[in-house]
């Protein structure tokens, strides 16, 4: 049977506000699956043209797939969100790139013709499920020295990346972090973020977090507007004495969920769904686990090569700020300035937080907004580093492109 790959588009994306993990965090008493469910329902409300029965797949990512993040979340969340029972679902895991992988996986299905419309998203409740909960690494990793001891501690891999690129100093990382907070505060002030947030009701029954009872969360909790270089200078370096990685130039431990609608371009047009981005190419690449933050560089190389593009064709970047150094490594690699205005225009994970498997769709949702605002840009990319030494990059085309400079 002759086949033609179909164009895949990003229709819409939403997320919960992100919270700080832990007993004082906004989501301490909120289930992870409920965060996903509310994102799915918001997508359906925002896209009333979409008959839920037409959704061919629900792919939901989580790194720690146990408890309220287990039980094949894509299926259970779909059922609990009120999707028809004919809509199937699955769970996805590529750690930090979970939601990104959910998107590229269903995108593959769309391109192949297996799906017309799919839901893809992710969740991580790092308060309920701390990193590494229940893991059982094979002892051969150690006995055969397959990875360095530091490979499973992400902060240590970031210190290792500083070692590899001595020019990426703590000062550059801190300066990047200050700008991330500034850009995020400005994006909030300009109303760029709120439109894609799903309000979440949260309950509190223990007093350490504040007033008791039900409340409503409408903004990201981790943000620290007004962060200064001085303020960051004296923070502890928890991963290495006299190291460079601090809570100030890294993303935190967070709770949150995202969801997006992915469709074939034809189906989107037929159903009257918005077309916010067109998928150009994607790639995941493995690197040494102890410098996992290097991953986005070869991933980007590969994705650009597949698209027949060069880095100069990319007009907007949404790079996940797991650690400032890891973004700087990519920018340095391509000779892009630390404060290049094309990069993370709304700020990044250092300000908003990084609930592991949910973040990929946040990058896409923000890039989609930027495409709308900047029709002179033709291509943008979302990229992130992934635990155990991986990187993932997805390149998108702006459907609003007006033939301008790039």
């Amino acid at each position, binding site marked *: 049977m002759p086949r033609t790959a179909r164009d895949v588009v990003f229709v819409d994306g939403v997320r919960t506000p992100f919270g700080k993990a832990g007993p004082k965090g906004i989501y301490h008493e909120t289930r992870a699956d409920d965060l996903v*469910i509310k994102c799915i329902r918001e997508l359906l409300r925002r896209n009333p043209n979409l008959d839920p029965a037409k959704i061919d797949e629900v792919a939901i990512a989580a790194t720690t797939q146990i408890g309220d993040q287990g039980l094949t979340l894509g299926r259970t969340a779909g059922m609990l969100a009120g999707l028809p029972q004919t809509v199937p679902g699955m769970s996805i895991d590529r750690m930090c790139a979970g939601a990104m992988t959910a998107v590229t996986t269903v995108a593959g299905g769309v391109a192949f013709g297996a799906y017309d419309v799919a839901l893809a998203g992710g969740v991580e409740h790092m308060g309920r499920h701390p990193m590494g909960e229940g893991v059982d690494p094979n002892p051969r990793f150690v006995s055969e020295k397959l990875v360095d001891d530091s490979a499973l501690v992400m902060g240590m891999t970031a210190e290792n990346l500083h070692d590899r690129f001595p020019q990426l100093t703590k000062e550059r990382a801190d300066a990047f972090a200050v700008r991330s907070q500034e850009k995020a505060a400005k994006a909030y002030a300009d109303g760029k973020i709120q439109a894609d947030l799903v309000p979440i*009701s949260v*309950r509190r*029954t223990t007093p350490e977090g504040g007033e008791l009872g*039900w409340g409503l969360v409408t903004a990201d909790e981790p943000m620290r507007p007004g962060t200064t270089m001085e303020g960051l200078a004296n923070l502890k370096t928890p991963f290495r004495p006299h190291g460079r990685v601090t809570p100030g130039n890294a993303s935190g431990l967070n709770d949150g969920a995202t969801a997006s609608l992915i469709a074939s371009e034809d189906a989107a047009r037929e159903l009257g769904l918005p077309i916010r981005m067109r998928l150009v190419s994607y790639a995941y690449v493995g690197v040494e686990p102890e410098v996992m933050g290097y991953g986005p560089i070869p991933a980007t190389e590969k994705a650009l090569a597949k698209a027949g593009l060069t880095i100069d064709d990319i007009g907007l970047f949404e790079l996940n700020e797991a650690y400032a150094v890891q973004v700087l490594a990519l920018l340095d690699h391509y000779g892009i300035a630390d404060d290049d205005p094309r990069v993370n225009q709304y700020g990044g994970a250092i300000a908003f937080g990084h609930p592991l498997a949910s973040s990929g769709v946040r990058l896409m949702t923000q890039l989609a907004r930027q495409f709308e605002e900047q029709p002179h840009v033709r291509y943008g990319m979302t990229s992130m580093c992934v635990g155990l030494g991986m990187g993932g990059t997805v390149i998108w085309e702006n459907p609003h492109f007006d033939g301008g400079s790039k």
Partner: protein
Amino acid sequence: MSTAELLKGAAELFPGEVVTQAHVRHFDLPKGAGTFALITLDNGLDHTKPTTFGPRSLANLSAAIDQVEAEARDGKITGVGVTGKPFIFAVGADLKGVELLARHEDALAIGKGGHDVFKRLSSLAVPTFAYYNGAAMGGGVEVGLHCTYRTVSKAIPAFSLPEVFLGLVPGWGGCTLLPNLIGADRAVSVIIENSLSQNKQLRGKQVFELGIADALFEGADFLEQSLLWTASVLSGETEVSRPEVDRGEAWDRAVERGRFVADSKVHGAAPAAYRALEIISAAKNGDLAAGFDAEDKALADLIMGGELRSGIYAFNLVQKRAKRPAGAPDRSLARPVTKVGVVGAGLMASQLALLFLRRLEVPVVLTDIDQERIDKGVGYVHGEIDKLLAKGRIGQDKANRLKASVTGSLNKAAAFGDADFVIEAVFEEMGVKQQVFAEVEAVVPAHTILATNTSSLSVSEMASKLKHPERVVGFHFFNPVAILPLLEIVRGELTDDAALATAFGVAKKLKKTAVLVKDAPAFVVNRILTRFMGEIQNVIDEGTPVAVAEKAVEPLGLPMSPLVLLELVGPAIGLHVSETLNRAFPDRFTVSPNLAAVVKAGKRGFYVYDSGKPELDPEVAALLKQGDVVLTEEQVRDRVLDAVAQEIGLMLDEGVVAEAQDIDLCLITGAGWPFHLGGITPYLDREGVSERAAGRRFLAPGVASVPA
């Protein structure tokens, strides 16, 4: 007296209150609708312990309202909401506290305390919103009625004003506010009709359709959507419009309809519905303050009355005692029941087969003496399953499973060789039943329980000829088996704990209210009903006109008159039971020659219904041979109630049941005797009948009565 003082005084009377907190939490609403204060009602326990309002709880809510009142006045907030913990909004007044009230003034304080707190929600400087997120009953519903707006979750399973059902009126604003919100007719449906229809619950969608709530949202993100809606109401984007309430004749017609409903359910015997209707009627002029005063008064009067105490007592019997049967052995002794045998394939046996099949979902096999009867029995069960399928009560898969699980056999050994529980429903004669049990015992495994559905024969005697009499229990159902909840479980002299525990385990799976009774003639319900009917029959035989005898017990508010009940049971069965009891207790149980004549004439009852109303059948009238002692209604009532009280006293002396509470539980669940009588013993105590006829009260003072 200030609200705080009032509630402090009430709190001292109720030291055991489970206290509900009223947490106030502030946050910014979306759409720039300002800072909102949300009150969460939460007793700190999970959803199995619903949130209630006792005096300390009301004081907590009052303090929360103090706080938001000041914030609203100072312009710090733009709105106030009230919601509940997960799955529960609030289920109203704490009845345990109501039971403790002994003085009219304290009862009045409860009503006034609730009003004083709740009504402030309607007079803040900002709009107020109730979000019915979960079960809402009584005072829980009412706290929301005082708010400016309400939303309700599609997922809520229970929403009601059950006060009239218990013997109260919705007295924290319900009687006054609800008709003013949704009109008198709908209010009558909620307050009177639903309440008197076994406390029927509304679902979220109905709450919205009735106009009680202004918006309906799905459960998955109910609070989020409610708060977004709130923001749009506050910002003026959404305008809430409600239909105009008809304050004309429709209001009066609604109240009339309510009276008709009340009459048909309680026959004037319980005051609550009528008091509620008076307040609804007066609420027509929209004077809320006067309505609230009337509610306070009605509440206090009813709290100090016996009907409410009986109602709460009955409610607790059905809700609590029914779930933990007095005297039942440890449930760990129960054996698994994976296959059930039914001896007999007649109508009763077929109904039992259907019940066991549906509830236990294990193979059920019927036996009888010829194939035709068996086919008829199995056919009956299949037919009933088809009806359930047609009504959508079960799916095709379930229907297939159930039909495949019911079979019939002429061969008891093949049928019962691997049955764990065999029940017989053959002809009500000792010799026949003994023989059946002997045949069954010969073919069943050692662990099999043998149950008898006898209504009047001795279980011990039935078991006496068996090798293992310890495995026999009485399993006395009530007709209609599918509807009446009661199951009298009879312990024979030699019945062992394992058999009894298994019987209780099966009863629970059958969703029956099981009561342990001693192996005494006719057990509980039939003995009391037969004594009751026998005394009615006696006064008729002695010369009192049938109509007078029937009317004499009308003020009790029983579900039907004695002779209509006799018709339902069947005169022949009634006669048979009276003969059995006459043999056991000849001095108290008579066999009416008139009833015998009616049965002999083949009549199915005393009445004909040609005119649409029951009228004495002239053919029956011609059969009656009456004496010349004509009693008044009051004299008849005294005689009948004295007889019932005497019999109950003797039954308690004999140890037929553990306590008077079990007698009442049996009468409520097996004979449909009403809540406002508390079954019957609270009423007999209250009216002094027990003292007169049995020489003592049946219940301690304060149990189902106002404490001293």
